[in-house]
């Protein structure tokens, strides 16, 4: 520990350390300044002890007590116990629904989750068969279609229920994990997408419109729920989200460059846009800002850039040098340099994430082992004969 020592004193690190400990533990400086004769320290147990309490009260009835709280964990407190010991749960007339929701989702164990997974599979199959049979008018298949429809509605209801359960459980948990919120938002979106076609059909809108078809197809997205349950895929999604977050500034810079080249493109190729030649293939590509933006993106993906450039060269009003400088500069900067910077950042991010995860895993493992070791020793001591207890008491005295 580096310390400050005035000129003329020798630098004694141990003396400094001991002095700091003294000052910290005994509030030496306050004592030496005469602020307190002896710094009183009481434990909670003493406060509840009647004799000590009397002594305290005899001293000064209006004295202030500063509490110095040190948490002490006897054993590991599980999340469930923590949730159960909240004030809202212990002091309300009726227990909140989130308790039951938590029980259903966790205590029934794999039963509920397996049931949901089975329903997801069933849903996918039902949708597939339904789409196949949608246009057929075979009357013998009518009961089949009916059962399929009923099954689809039933599955939808069960999903809704599960969504409400999860929501209820999460409502009680005020420690909102941003990762979970992401999944929650995603679930809600999907559910809403799958609910809307049903609701609209109920209201009576004709099912021929394109949007409705699209929304029905979105039901297929429900099967994506399945993927979110596997731990590995969750880790990958987490890694992707983190990588995207670190790359926000890069993407912002890329957007700025898109803007610059799009607006400049409109001006640079004014002659090309206004030209009256009939054989120009890409005539409308730089006509206004939106088209120019799309063209800039097309150039970014290196698609038909030489054809575009040769088309521009057909018009004599546009100077060849400036147009080629524009295109080549954008290709170099955007598609070659920027794209590789994005790849490099992704690689670096994934490496970082992998290193962090490994560190976390080893850290957890070490802690776990230390905890087990401690438990073992304490158990062994408690299992010893009373002679050991006698010997330890003699040591304390």
């Amino acid at each position, binding site marked *: 520990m580096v310390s*400050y020592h005035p000129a003329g004193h020798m630098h004694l690190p141990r003396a400094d350390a001991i002095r700091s400990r003294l000052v910290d533990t005994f509030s030496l400086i306050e004592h030496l300044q005469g602020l307190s004769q002896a710094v009183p*320290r009481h434990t909670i147990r003493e406060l509840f002890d009647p004799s000590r309490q009397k002594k305290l009260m005899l001293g000064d009835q209006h004295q202030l007590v500063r509490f110095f709280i040190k948490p002490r964990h006897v054993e590991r407190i599980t999340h469930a116990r923590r949730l159960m010991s909240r004030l809202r749960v212990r002091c309300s007339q009726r227990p909140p629904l989130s308790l039951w929701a938590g029980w259903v989702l966790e205590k029934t164990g794999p039963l509920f989750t397996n049931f949901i997974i089975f329903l997801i599979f069933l849903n996918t199959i039902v949708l597939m068969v339904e789409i196949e049979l949608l246009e057929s008018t075979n009357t013998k298949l009518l009961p089949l279609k009916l059962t399929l429809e009923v099954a689809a509605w039933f599955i939808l209801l069960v999903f809704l229920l599960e969504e409400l359960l999860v929501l209820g459980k999460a409502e009680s948990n005020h420690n909102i994990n941003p990762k979970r919120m992401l999944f929650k938002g995603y679930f809600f979106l999907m559910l809403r997408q799958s609910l809307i076609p049903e609701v609209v059909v109920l209201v009576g809108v004709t099912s021929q419109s394109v949007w409705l078809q699209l929304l029905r197809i979105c039901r297929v997205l429900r099967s994506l729920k399945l993927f979110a349950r596997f731990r590995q895929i969750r880790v990958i999604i987490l890694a992707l989200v983190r990588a995207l977050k670190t790359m926000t500034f890069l993407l912002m810079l890329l957007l700025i460059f898109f803007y610059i080249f799009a607006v400049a493109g409109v001006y640079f190729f004014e002659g090309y846009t206004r030209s009256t030649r009939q054989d120009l293939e890409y005539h409308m590509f730089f006509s206004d800002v939106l088209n120019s933006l799309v063209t800039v993106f097309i150039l970014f993906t290196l698609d038909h850039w030489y054809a575009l450039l040769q088309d521009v060269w057909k018009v004599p009003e546009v100077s060849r040098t400036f147009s080629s400088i524009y295109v080549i500069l954008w290709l170099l900067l955007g598609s070659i340099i920027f794209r590789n910077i994005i790849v490099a950042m992704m690689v*670096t991010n994934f490496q970082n994430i992998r290193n962090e995860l490994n560190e976390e895993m080893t850290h957890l493992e070490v802690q776990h082992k230390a905890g087990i070791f401690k438990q073992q020793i304490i158990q062994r001591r408690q299992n010893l004969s009373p002679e050991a207890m006698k010997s330890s008491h003699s040591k304390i005295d």
Partner: protein
Amino acid sequence: YLPLIQIFDRRKDTELRAFVQRVIAGPLFKIIMISTISMNAFFVVLWTNYKIRFRLFRLFEISEVLFVSIYSTEFCMKVYVDPINYWKDGYNLLDVLIIIIISIPYALRKIKGKHYPYLNIANGMQSLRILKLITYSRGIRTLIIAVGQTAYTVASVLILFFLLMYIFAILGFCLFGAPEMGDQNNWGNLAVAFFTLFSLATVDGWTDLQQELDDRNFVLSRAFTIIFILLASFIFLSMFVGVMIIHTEDSIKKFERDLELERHMILMEEKQVILKRQQEEVSHLMQTQKNVDYKSFSELVENFKKTLQHTDPMVLDDFGTSLPFIDIYLSTLDNQDNTIYKLQELYYEMVHVLRLMLEDLPKKQQSQSLEVAEK
């Protein structure tokens, strides 16, 4: 060099300079500048549309005057505050460059007349005004610092690439660009040859170019094209990616290390301040006590020690005073005791067995052994 600094050091308007500096560094100024630049960028976009330009031209003229005045005021204020160090910061140079770019269309119009064909190029460059926003965004600045350190590598790879293209361009021109039978369009002169090769390198539409060469029955064309595509697109551009990955990793690591170091230094400084205060208080105490009672620090501590009792509870947060440690320590001591007892028993056993062995020895040495046993 030296007298110039002395002249500027003797400026008497330090108060005004400090005021202007405070204004520039304040948040209000930042907000004004950011909103101005965003409005400017938006107007530049609107200005591209002829109809809107026609209808709102007065608004555009006024806004243009406003923006130019704001930018020049900012420039003047910053130069006024610190005329010499202003030119050392890259972002200030960017500001100056943008002011020059803004004045180009006006200058061109004055000098070359209203129908100069390259006027739209000068107008197009106005889109660069949005680069001023980078100064106000911390994240993009750090990103540019991190990425900018790879600039040398990028430049060298690009130069190598250009060299490769140059070699192949000359080769291609000689092979395929002959005036009569050759493909005049694509390999006729060096510039077109370069473009053709760049098109091959980015593998976009290269089959059409190859088709043209095939139509003219060139023998070597396929080998040429394939070798160049392998070298340029596969090897060079992939090498580019690899080099960028390594350098980005290095620069990001270095950057994070610098950040960590900075944070560490700030923490150490704070600790120093606290320690310094403690030391000062102690020495102050020693001084006052010396004046009054001629008691030294050790005597004071002795007096303090006398007020402590063995039954006083103390709150300590050492590792050695935590309950698990005490449990483990006591149980280790118990184990030690047990081991010592067991060892003692074993030694008694050993001595007993040896004694029995001695007693069983032949009677000639009985007297000696008895003496030994008695000892």
